[in-house]
């Protein structure tokens, strides 16, 4: 049992990448640091556990990154996915600092590898963690222990007691028992609220009950809610979340990358009434996978069914769940729990509308339908060859956009625009400041690493004054 009567220089709330970067940086600056992680040790690391790379600016090839990826190109990529819902100053600063963050990570024991198979297009822009995000989290925790950071698992911050922008003390539960922690400075790196279905329901209505959460069940936004209720300024759309279509058989939480399903462009997707609802072949999957979470979420019961035939079976990454197969379309519909007559009619109508063309899975091939609503504009081939294959789809929530507002020193702002005296934030809890919409692969880790280090540095400075 730790001595809760002492005063730490820095309290870090959270156990993911951003929290660890902040804790390590503050400790290396000479501060006493307590890190509290709400999850048990086995599930430590928040959503960082499920990540696998960091988008990194680099002027020349590095050990794992090819060619060069410069600030302007990085910024353009970000601008495109966010549609302008970003802060150029903070974003460009983050981008520039990723280069140094990568060095810090390597020095901290994080190991990297060349980009994974099937992700060659990322070998220039994203540095992959050897073994993925859990290996990264393990490396940081091992370093934190060596540095003498106090670490408490199963320990959740429940109330940051703020007076006029100053955190006086923090009420926590430690293995279920209430305690109070006092620290000169506090860094909140406790993630978003995507695991709180009640909260999601406020934005999405009852449909949210059918959402699957791709990551940690511990990101309930307790600290976020607590801060917003006390007059901390917010950023980001409170109702929005990043949702992708994943295999409908995924577990409620923590299904991670293995539940991804990349078959949509080669399929037709029907809802529970057996009807198509969107152009499956609008663009290549990497550019469209993020809208399908939302599309499925808008369907009755928040479920969709992707249907392909034998021709397309090998064109996409296998999902972790076995394909549902049948010898006829009707039989497949029955296995999927759909009305066979309706699905047969939808498939027949689609097949009749397919215009002959030269199919090519690797580019926009123009194989399309004619006179069909909604149309399918690429990769449209008649579904005719047994076995017929189906996958259920459901919305999988990756993260939420609502967060606390910070300045370039990671210092939290209050509603009236004044800075907090001793509260800093890093990671998902403040990412909405930079990423207001959409997603760019490996950018969450970039924000977490960069702002984690800034928060740690500034918190240390603050604690000494």
């Amino acid at each position, binding site marked *: 049992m730790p001595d809760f009567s002492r005063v730490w220089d820095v309290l870090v709330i959270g156990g993911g990448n951003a929290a660890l970067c902040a804790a390590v940086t503050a400790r290396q600056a000479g501060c006493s640091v307590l890190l509290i992680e709400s999850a048990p040790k*086995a599930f430590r690391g928040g959503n960082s556990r499920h990540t696998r790379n960091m988008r990194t600016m680099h002027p020349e090839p590095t050990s794992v990154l090819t060619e060069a990826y410069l600030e302007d190109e990085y910024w353009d990529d970000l601008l495109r996915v966010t549609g302008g819902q970003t802060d150029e100053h903070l974003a460009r600063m983050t981008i520039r600092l990723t280069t140094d963050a990568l060095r810090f990570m390597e020095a901290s024991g994080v190991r990297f590898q060349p980009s*994974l198979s099937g992700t060659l297009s990322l070998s220039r822009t994203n540095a992959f963690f050897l*073994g993925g995000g*859990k290996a990264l989290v393990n490396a940081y925790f091992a370093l934190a222990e060596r540095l003498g950071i106090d670490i408490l698992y199963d320990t959740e911050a429940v109330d940051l007691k703020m007076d006029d922008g100053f955190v006086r003390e923090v009420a926590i539960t430690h293995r279920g028992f209430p305690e109070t922690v006092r620290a000169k400075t506090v860094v909140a790196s406790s993630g978003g609220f995507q695991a709180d279905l009640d909260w999601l329901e406020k934005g999405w209505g009852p449909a949210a009950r059918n959402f699957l959460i791709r990551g940690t069940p511990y990101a309930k936004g307790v600290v976020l809610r607590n801060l917003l209720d006390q007059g901390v300024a917010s950023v980001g759309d409170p109702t929005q979340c990043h949702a992708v279509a994943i295999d409908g058989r995924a577990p409620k939480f923590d299904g991670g990358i*293995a539940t*991804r399903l*990349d078959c949509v462009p080669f399929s037709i997707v029907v809802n529970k009434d057996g009807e198509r609802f969107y152009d499956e072949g609008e663009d290549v999957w990497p550019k469209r*996978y993020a809208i399908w979470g939302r599309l499925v979420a808008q369907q009755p019961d928040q479920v969709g069914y992707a249907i392909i035939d034998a021709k397309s079976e090998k064109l996409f990454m296998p999902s972790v769940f076995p394909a549902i197969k049948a010898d006829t379309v009707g039989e497949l519909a029955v296995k999927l729990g759909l009305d066979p007559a309706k699905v047969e009619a939808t498939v027949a109508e689609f097949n009749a509308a397919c215009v002959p063309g030269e199919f090519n899975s690797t580019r926009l091939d123009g194989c399309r339908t004619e006179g069909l609503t909604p149309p399918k504009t690429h990769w449209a081939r008649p579904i005719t060859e047994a076995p017929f294959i189906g996958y259920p789809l459901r919305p999988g929530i990756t993260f939420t956009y609502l967060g606390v507002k910070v300045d370039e020193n990671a210092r939290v702002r209050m509603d009236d625009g004044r800075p907090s005296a001793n509260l800093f934030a890093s990671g998902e809890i403040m990412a909405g400041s930079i990423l207001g919409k959409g*997603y760019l692969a490996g950018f969450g880790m970039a924000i977490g690493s960069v702002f984690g280090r800034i928060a740690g540095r500034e918190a240390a400075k603050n604690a000494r004054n």
Partner: protein
Amino acid sequence: MRETEATADARRALEVCNACRYCEGFCAVFPAMTLRREFTSGDLSYLANLCHNCRGCYYSCQYAPPHPWNINVPQVLAQVRAETYEEYAWPGPLAGLFKRNGTIVSLAMIAGIALALILTMALVDPSILYTPQQGPGAFYRVIPWWLMVTLAGGTSLFAVLALVMGFRNFWRDTGGRADELRPGRPLAVALHDILTLKNLGGGGGGCNDVDEGFSQVRRRFHHFMFYGFLLCFASTTSATFYDHFLGHEAPYPFLSLPVQLGFWGGVGMVIGTAGLIWTKIVSDPAPAARNLLGSDYALLVLLLMAAATGLLLLGLRDTGAMGVLLAVHLGVIFTLFAVIPYSKMVHGVYRSAALFRHALERRPTPPPGNKPSDRALGSAA
């Protein structure tokens, strides 16, 4: 390879791995896995023997227990690997020796030592066992030369035959063809991977030998043991050469080639086996297949005994203890040769074969455009 509970578990685990692939940089298993979408039992046998049990994937796994999917790749592949030893054992009826293998190997060693002592006493004057014997032919006064050669030669020839047959069974079952077994670049790559234990490097920076931290201790201890063993083998070979062609009878002086090779080889084997036993004792049991530890320990102890009794014999060969030590040492060596095809030792054959298969498999680059679609933007936040 027959279908069992272990192959079913391994297939399920690898299907999860194949949809994740975060571990691709650790070792050969994952790149080999991604070449497949479905896993036949032969594939599982191949992948299980390709696995060096470095445990990097266990500590990195987001689906490791207590996650409900309960993915423990090192453990489940170890179970399959143990079953492949049974599956490919030759002659078939002896496959049962791989069940409770730790007990059997341990009993074999005890029986080997006892038999050597009893035979010695029965065949030569028991007093020779307790009186110092020196000068050329001293060893053969304790155990006759013809007996040594018959036992050692007979058991080792049989061991080689059994291992070759096991290799053949493995090669066929994992889809290999006879015409692939020829020299060339894949064989050179495989030999490099075998002799450097590249796959115990964790993709650079080490493996999880003991816990979440990275180290190279298992690799180094294995090198001590393996190269020590080779030196001891070279020692025996050179001694045979001295005896047959140069007419020098053992024992040889300390600075002679056979004794120098044997001495340093023995030291290496003691360091290596003791180190590996220590690593097993202190390592995190979670990714280990506990029911198989007995087999591991039994072989390590047998190898340690072989080296330690050899060194002891060298140190005390001029005293009255020589006779008993020689009998014990030769009993252990005889046991080692006898149990090689029916102990953990076979892993060397199947792992080498799997590395060769992997080198063959990697050679042709798959045609572009035929790969599963890119997951470019697929990373979670």
